[in-house]
């Protein structure tokens, strides 16, 4: 293991990057899915029906968690860079806020 891997913040930085890559892959697909509305409500409904499959639901949940993690860890970076927050406090805060957002996002997804 390289020395940098043991530094505080490494796991946070790695999660931030991996979640960012996941979102970059997901976004074009999300845009394509929304654009099915160009063919009318029935076409969008056919897509929404697909999202009710268990595997798709699981993938949806994964991307929601990735969004929560990426946003929270991004706020952590901004706080460290622009507001001089201490790393240790932020590590704990990041985990808490990420958990809250993840739960909240999943709840919203299931609201329908």
């Amino acid at each position: 293991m390289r020395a940098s891997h043991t530094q505080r913040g490494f796991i946070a930085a790695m999660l931030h990057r991996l979640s960012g890559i996941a979102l970059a892959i997901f976004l074009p697909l999300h845009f394509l899915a929304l654009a099915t509305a160009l063919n009318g409500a029935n076409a969008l409904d056919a897509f929404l029906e697909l999202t009710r499959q268990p595997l798709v639901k699981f993938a949806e949940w994964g991307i929601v968690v990735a969004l929560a993690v990426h946003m929270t860890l991004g706020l952590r970076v901004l706080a460290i860079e622009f507001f001089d927050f201490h790393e240790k406090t932020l590590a704990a805060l990041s985990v808490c806020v990420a958990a809250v957002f993840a739960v909240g996002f999943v709840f919203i997804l299931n609201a329908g």
Partner: protein
Amino acid sequence: MSPLLFMAQRLTAFVLALAVSAHLATILYAVRGGLSAGEILARTHGNVAFMLFYGVFVVAVAIHAPIGLRSIIREWTPWRGRTLDLALVLFSLFLLALGFRAVYAVYA
């Protein structure tokens, strides 16, 4: 990372933090009373304010994502230089095109 790319990345991060929060509120609104496409589109079509909001969202994403990917690719792979920058400009344009198309489909 150049100062311009650094500032663009951070500025769009601020915008996206606000936009994602608003996006959640919009999802809550959209799924209220059921998630049928007809109901969603009936609420969204013709809403100029939301169309502008999501237009800004798409622009911020199209700037933010390629700059982040550029840093990751440069650090984790030997790929760099003009071909990498060109590929990421194309990815940015790809996101812009698909994003605007989606906004048009839902809000126009």
